[in-house]
């Protein structure tokens, strides 16, 4: 499996404040990858480093096997809040894309604009948030990059606009075969489109893997209150909570758990991500999982 994005001890500091610290990850190519984490985890910084908008303070970053530079025809980027030129019309944006990108796919751009119902003569400043996001995605996609990075593209959209946007993204991924990395702090957005998920907390990778694998290997165990030091081989504790009489654990296990003293439940993706986010402090279990796929 080739990698779309590799980082090694990647650090970005602004003065004394670290926006991203010692981040090491490997994002496979050919997937729709969700990058999820709480606000301030370093998602935006990571994506801006990946498209060359920022330069790293320390560490190494490689995008499609090369150092990222802004102006690369192989990487597309839709920035947070999907900025567009307010004074330019929709058609002007497409003309800009055609003038500034040798690999521009005019037919794709026209088709997408018609599909999402944008009026080419309308000024971009008058578009709704959802329409603006669609325009920004169209400009980024019609460049035909090998890797498309999206920084919280749906954060400001209402549920319907959100669904339309993600629908469009799915179609692009299927038609164009481009790798997509999309960040969000909402798992529900990513669940629908991503087949690979990375949980980033405090610039560390808590877990990374194919969505199906994650769903299959994570379990919630509920049972009589007990000590959790010994879970058995091949099992790792992600999160635990205890009451007087009852223990609730989230466990990653490759083998199915057959133990009559536990009630074993399946977890959905949101539960898994939340377990990793809240279990991030303390117990060291996360460290074991780091870098696993």
């Amino acid at each position, binding site marked *: 499996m080739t990698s779309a994005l590799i980082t090694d001890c990647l650090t970005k500091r602004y003065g004394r404040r670290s926006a991203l610290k010692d981040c090491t990850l490997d994002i496979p190519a050919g997937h729709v990858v969700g990058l999820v984490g709480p606000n301030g985890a370093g998602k935006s910084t990571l994506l801006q480093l990946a498209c060359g908008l920022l330069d790293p303070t320390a560490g190494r970053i490689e995008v499609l096997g090369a150092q990222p530079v802004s102006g690369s025809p192989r990487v597309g980027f839709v920035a947070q809040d999907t900025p567009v030129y307010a004074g330019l019309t929709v058609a002007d944006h497409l003309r*800009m894309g055609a003038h500034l990108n040798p*690999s521009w796919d005019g037919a794709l751009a026209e088709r997408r604009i018609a599909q999402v119902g944008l009026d080419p003569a309308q000024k971009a400043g008058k578009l709704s948030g959802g329409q603006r996001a669609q325009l920004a995605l169209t400009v980024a996609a019609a460049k035909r990059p090998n890797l498309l990075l999206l920084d919280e593209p749906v954060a400001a959209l209402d549920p319907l606009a959100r669904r339309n946007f993600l629908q469009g993204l799915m179609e692009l991924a299927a038609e164009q075969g481009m790798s997509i990395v999309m960040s969000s702090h909402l798992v529900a957005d990513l669940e629908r489109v991503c087949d690979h998920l990375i949980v980033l907390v405090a610039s560390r990778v808590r877990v990374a893997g194919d969505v199906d694998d994650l769903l299959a290997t994570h379990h919630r165990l509920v049972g009589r209150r007990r000590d959790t030091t010994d879970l058995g081989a091949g099992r790792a504790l992600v999160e635990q909570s205890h009451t007087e009489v009852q223990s609730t654990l989230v466990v990653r296990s490759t083998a199915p758990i057959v133990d009559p003293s536990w009630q074993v439940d399946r977890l959905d993706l949101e539960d898994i991500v939340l377990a990793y986010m809240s279990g991030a402090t303390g117990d060291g279990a996360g460290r074991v999982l780091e870098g696993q796929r």
Partner: protein
Amino acid sequence: MIWMTWRQFRTPALATGTLLLALLVALALTWSEVTELSTQTGYAGCQGDACRAAAESFLQALQPGWASEVHIAAIGALYLLPALVGIFWGAPLVARELESGTYRMVFSQSVSRGRWLLVKLAIGGAAAALGAGLLSLVLTEWAQPIDGASADRMNPLVFAARGIVPVGYATLAFVVGVATGLLLRRTLGAMAVTLLVVVSLQIAAPFVVRPWLAQPVTTVSPLTFDGDFGISMSPDTGRMTVHVEPDRRGDWVVSSTTITSTGAEFTGPADMTKCGRNASGGRETCQRWLGEQNLSLKVSYVPGSKFWGLQWREFGVLIAVTVVLSLFSLWWVRRRLV
């Protein structure tokens, strides 16, 4: 990139262009007025001593007409143009992209940041040079009889509104605007700072830069006090200064001082019995007394023949600063921005 630059630049460019066009039309319409008056008053084609009087009457005849108004407006426009270009073309060029976040969109197209700024600098700078150059060229041609008659071309105020110097100011102001916007990242702040820098430059140039570039000639000649002169004195202390207008028609007098035989500036004290309110003899006595003081006039001036040499020097300095600032901006956008 050229298309994109033009698309973003066309509104301010057309607005400034309209202003320039209006002035060019006004100059064209008054062209015949200037040439006709110079013929009527006998200034055109005058010979020898008659010229001085003909020039006077030519300038007198110009006063009531439109030509003198247009002349002042065109000079004013050439002073205003650098500030306008810096504020409305230069300052928002990068600052607005940074402020609205659109730099993240344009930097993710397949164009490097360096090329993006280079094209913008080249097109904006060329447009500023073209606009200022065109107006200055037409004005310099239009005002040729007036400049000849008034011999005022070296006057600091007129100098910067003739020849090629306006081109230098306009391009420099544009790049100052761009660089300030790049550093401040705020459109409004960049506009204010640009205005401040451009105006300071326009004020500092005639007082500091130009005398240094021109290397004025200094002459000392004995004062005879038989022409016009002015006296200012304090009746209590007897402190007195003498002002004599040097006869340097067509030259730029940088400074003129009355000095004593030792070379120091003459400041009195005056003989209170011969000069001042209580003196008996009146103005002639004082004049005679001054004549006996062995005073000289020290004049530092730039000959009018150096006009084009000075134009090229000042233009060269302005363009050199423009180039340095442009290179700095290109370096900054590549290495230091965000």
